[in-house]
C-alpha cells in the first residue's frame, strides 16, 4: 500500500514541478530490520517520494556495511537521511528517524531548499552573520511527529547548515531514539542542542535562534 496517498502525491508533483530547480540526491542509511523498526518504512516513503519527480535521486546504504560512505557523512544511527545538491555537495542537513507527521513537511521544504539553494529562513543580513561562524558546529533538534512547533525549529537549524559549511544540523525523532533522548534529558520538544552543551526548548524566531547560535559558539 502506498504511504503517500494519491492526492498528496498529485499535490507534491505540482509543488515539485513549480519549485524544484536543480536535482537533489537523497541518501538514506538503513540497518537490518531486527535492529531498526522504522528503516523499512523510511526507505519506502522516500522511494515513493523520489518517484514523484525525476529531479529526485535516491541512494540506499547500509549503516554497518557501507562503512566508507557512513564515515564520510559521520552517520551514527539509522534510519538517517542526508541531502546532497546536484554536484554531490553535502547540504549538512540530516534527519535521524522517520520524517513522519509534521516532519514530512520539513523534508519537503529542505529538498526544495537544497534544489534552489535558498534556505527556508533568514534574510541576506542574517545569512551573512551565520556565515561568519568559522568553527565546527553541530546542532541537534529533538522532535516528535505530533509536535506542531517542531518543523520550524528543524528548518531553522537546517537553514543554518545550508548556508555555512561548518554547521551540521540534525533532526532527531525522539521516540525512535529513546536512550539518546533520555541521555540528553529531553522531555519537551522541540529541544535544540548546539555542540551538545548549549540548549533551549521551543521554536525561536530567526534572530533569537542566531543569538543562541552565537552564545554556543562563544562558549568554545
Amino acid at each position, binding site marked *: 500500500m502506498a504511504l503517500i496517498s494519491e492526492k498528496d502525491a498529485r*499535490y*507534491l508533483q505540482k*509543488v515539485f514541478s513549480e*519549485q524544484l530547480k536543480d536535482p537533489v540526491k537523497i541518501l538514506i542509511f538503513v540497518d537490518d530490520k531486527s535492529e531498526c523498526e522504522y528503516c523499512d518504512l523510511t526507505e519506502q516513503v522516500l522511494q515513493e517520494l523520489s518517484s514523484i519527480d525525476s529531479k529526485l535521486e535516491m541512494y540506499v546504504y547500509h549503516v554497518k556495511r557501507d562503512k566508507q560512505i557512513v564515515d564520510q557523512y559521520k552517520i551514527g544511527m539509522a534510519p538517517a537521511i542526508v541531502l546532497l545538491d546536484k554536484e554531490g555537495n553535502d547540504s549538512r542537513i540530516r534527519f535521524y528517524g522517520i520524517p513522519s507527521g*509534521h516532519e*514530512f*513537511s520539513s523534508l*519537503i*521544504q529542505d529538498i*526544495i531548499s537544497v534544489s534552489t539553494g*535558498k534556505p*527556508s*529562513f533568514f534574510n541576506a543580513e542574517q545569512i551573512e552573520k551565520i556565515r561568519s561562524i568559522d568553527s565546527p558546529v553541530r546542532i541537534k533538534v529533538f522532535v*516528535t511527529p*505530533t*509536535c*506542531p*512547533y*517542531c*518543523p*520550524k525549529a528543524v*528548518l531553522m537549524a537546517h537553514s543554518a547548515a545550508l548556508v555555512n559549511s561548518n554547521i551540521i544540523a540534525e533532526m532527531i525523532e*525522539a*521516540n525512535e531514539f529513546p536512550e539518546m*533522548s533520555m541521555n540528553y*534529558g*529531553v*522531555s*519537551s*520538544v522541540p*529541544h535544540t542542542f548546539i555542540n551538545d552543551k548549549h540548549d533551549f*526548548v*521551543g*521554536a525561536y*524566531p*530567526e*534572530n*533569537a535562534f542566531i543569538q543562541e547560535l552565537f552564545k554556543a559558539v562563544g562558549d568554545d
Partner: protein
Amino acid sequence: MLFDVGLKGEIKDHYDVVTVGGGPAALGAAVYAKRAGLSVLVIEKTLEGGQLNLTTYIDNYLGFSSIEGQELARRMKEHAESLGTEFLNAQATKIIVEDEKRIVRTEEGRLISAGVIMIATGADPRKLGVAGERELTAKGISYCATCDGYFFKDKDVAVVGGGDTAINDALYLAKIARSVTIIHRRDKLRAVKILQDKAFSNEKIKFEFNKVVEEFVGSKKLEEVILKDTKTGQLSRLKFDGVFIAIGLMPNSELVNGIVELDESGYIITDESMQTSVPRIYAIGDVRKKNTRQIITAVADGAIAAMHAVEHYFS
C-alpha cells in the same frame, strides 16, 4: 502547514493593518481587511493558528463537525494568505503611539508603521506558580500534551485542571501512558458533560479531587508531586513521570501594559467594536476582556474590528 513553502517577500515599512499575533482572531481580521482592499501584515512569533495548534480535535467550530486543530490552523492561514496577507515571523516588543501614528517595533529593531494595530496576542497556558514548576518545566512538566505525550509512553502521568482542555489532554494521554491522574482543586470537573463521561468511563484515568499542587520535587527531572487536600490541609506525595498543566490561560497583554486600559487580570478592555482605550489600536481574541473564549468568537472579534477600521479610518 504540511507544504507551507515558507517563501517570504520583503516586509514593507507601512501597512494599513498590522496584527500582533497570528491566531484565529488575527487571521479573521486579515480576511475581512484584505477583502476591503487594505494591506495587512500578520506578525507571529511562533506559529500561525496560535492555540489551535495545541488542540488535537476541534468539534465546535461551525462547518466542521470534527477537525484537527493544526489542520484548521493551516486552512485559516491559507485563506488569509490567498487574499494577499503578508506574514512576518518575529516577536513584537513595543507599540509606539505618537499622535495619529501607530508603530510596532520587533525584537530585531524593525519599525513597522500601521494605520491600525490589532493586538491579537492571545493567551498562554497559565502556570501554577508553585515551587519547582519553573525548574522542572521541560524536565517532566509540560504544557503541551500533543507535543510531549510520547515521552511518557507506558508511564504514570498527571493532568492538573478540570476544564475542557485538561480532560481532552487526559483522554489523549490515556492512549499513551500507563495511567493518568487528574488533579483538580474542586470536587467536580468543569469540563462539558460529553468529555466528563468519556473520562469517567476510561479505566486508565484516576481522579484526585479537592487537591492542589503544593510543590514539584525532583533534582534532574520530575520525581514527585506534593499535593494538599483543600478540605483537610493534609499533604500527600505522589510519584509521576510527567505532569501536564492545563489550568486555563494568561493574557499576553504585557506589550500594551501602560498604553491601553487593562482589567485587573490583565485582559485588554475594548468597546463593542473591539477598539481599546487608544484609537487605532484594537484588541481581538483571547487577550480581550470578554466572557467567551472560543475559536468562533475569536474569528468574530477579528471581523468586527476589521469592519470597524475600514469604516472609520480607511473610507
